[in-house]
């Protein structure tokens, strides 16, 4: 199992460590519920060193990335991040990613579990373009600060203007003296930043941010809370809402797919859309029990789909789940059931996302 450069820091902080995508990662420190509430009310810091980072350079870097991802890369302005999907020829998803369009390169942020196969996919298909693909996953590293206090913690530590950095925008600058790429992005549904920098500074940055953020109660957050936060925010997790056999539009990811352009797998994606998608992703609210991935959704007592993610929601005070259901699924009043290990439990169809933060009003 691999360890991030912050492994010792997690152990010293008494985190419970578990295996995730081949990495030994902190699943919780104080407890998943407490940590979730902390990110929603104050701020948390996340070790994301395990995530993958590809860098594409050269005259045709933008073209090459655009040929593989579902979002429109040429249309992006420099300094903008965009969510997209890498598709296979059958219209399924190889991974979901973030594209960062920089002045002389394109950064692609990928899931930890898909690092190697995404890199191979890029190498295989970028050959026809005048560009170079590098896997910077091991040299670079990544830490996120998320929560309503994220800006007031991070902004004074950076020599770049983070206060005016817009959502899904990035810039370059030093944070605590370390050269970083800083984006206003995250996987929690809160305001926050993700910092990319040289791996050798990982521990200094982690300890430094925690020390500087102490006055605002910045705390380390584990993967369990991260999963709750992203589920509340209705964000997909590869392997749950997306996989090799899932068309991204079944998963409701229209905002990340530009059907007007060509991309690897677009023929299949478009054909499936034209023929009518067989499934759709819905949100469920369960007052009584927690629905877990794989549990059957029942409509009128009959199987109608499958849960992809489910968790208690500390923010909403109920249990929430996402599920793939038959395209025609429309139970009366949104009332259905989830088979909880042999016992049907009532559920209500609700919109995704389950939780949306209140955006700061522009002064």
């Amino acid at each position: 199992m691999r360890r991030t450069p912050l492994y010792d820091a997690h152990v010293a902080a008494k985190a419970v460590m578990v295996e995730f995508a081949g990495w030994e990662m902190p699943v919780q420190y104080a407890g998943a519920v407490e940590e979730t509430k902390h990110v929603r009310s104050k701020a948390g810091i996340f070790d994301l060193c395990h995530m993958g980072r590809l860098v594409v350079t050269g005259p045709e870097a933008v073209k090459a990335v655009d040929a593989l991802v579902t979002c429109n890369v040429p249309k992006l302005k420099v300094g903008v991040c965009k969510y997209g999907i890498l598709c296979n020829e059958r219209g399924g998803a190889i991974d979901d990613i973030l594209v960062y369009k920089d002045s002389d390169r394109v950064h692609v942020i990928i899931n930890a579990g898909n690092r190697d196969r995404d890199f191979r996919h890029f190498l295989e298909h970028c050959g026809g373009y005048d560009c170079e693909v590098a896997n910077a996953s091991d040299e670079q590293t990544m830490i996120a600060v998320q929560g309503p206090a994220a800006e007031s913690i991070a902004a004074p530590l950076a020599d770049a203007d983070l206060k005016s950095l817009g959502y899904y925008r990035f810039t370059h600058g030093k944070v605590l003296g370390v050269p970083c790429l800083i984006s206003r992005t995250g996987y929690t549904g809160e305001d926050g930043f993700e910092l990319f920098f040289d791996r050798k500074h990982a521990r200094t940055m982690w300890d430094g941010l925690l020390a500087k953020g102490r006055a605002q109660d910045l705390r380390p957050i584990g993967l369990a809370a991260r999963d709750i936060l992203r589920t509340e925010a209705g964000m997909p997790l590869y392997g749950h809402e997306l996989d090799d056999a899932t068309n991204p539009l079944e998963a409701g990811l229209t905002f990340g797919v530009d059907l007007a352009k060509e991309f690897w797998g677009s023929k299949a994606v478009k054909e499936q859309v034209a023929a009518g998608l067989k499934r759709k992703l819905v949100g469920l609210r369960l007052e009584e029990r927690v629905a877990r991935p794989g549990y059957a959704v029942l409509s009128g007592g009959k199987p109608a789909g499958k849960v992809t993610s489910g968790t208690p929601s500390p923010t909403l005070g109920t249990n929430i789940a996402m599920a793939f259901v038959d395209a025609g699924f429309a139970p009366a009043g949104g009332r259905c059931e989830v088979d909880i290990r042999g016992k049907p439990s009532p559920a209500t169809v609700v919109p995704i996302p389950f939780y949306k933060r209140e955006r700061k009003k522009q002064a």
Partner: protein
Amino acid sequence: MAVPKDLRYTKTHEWVGYDRASNLVTTGITDFAVKALGDLVYVELPEVGELMEIGHPYAEVESVKAVANIYGAVGADITEVNEELPNNLEWLVSDPYGKGWIAKGKVAGPDEFNKLLDAAAYEKHCQSEKH
């Protein structure tokens, strides 16, 4: 980590108390198990009259992240369950060997109880699981 000396244990982190006079066992899950599960959300109790069988799940406890089966440590006829526990899950955390008991049952005798891990052996087992 609390491991009372008068109880016996399983490798799957159940505890058993045995009362010789009544031939009754009291069962629950250990402090170690509760801590490993994290934030608890639900406990599913067995019904009075059901059989507890060695190695078979008779109850389940659910945390934010996972569902865990609770396995029978001895064979017993379940005579009483902790009805108040589902509404007082914090008892599993604050008093796993007392107010956090799960079920009581009638056993044939002390043999199966005596074969379980004693406190020292169980503590050793927990240490090995941590590494």
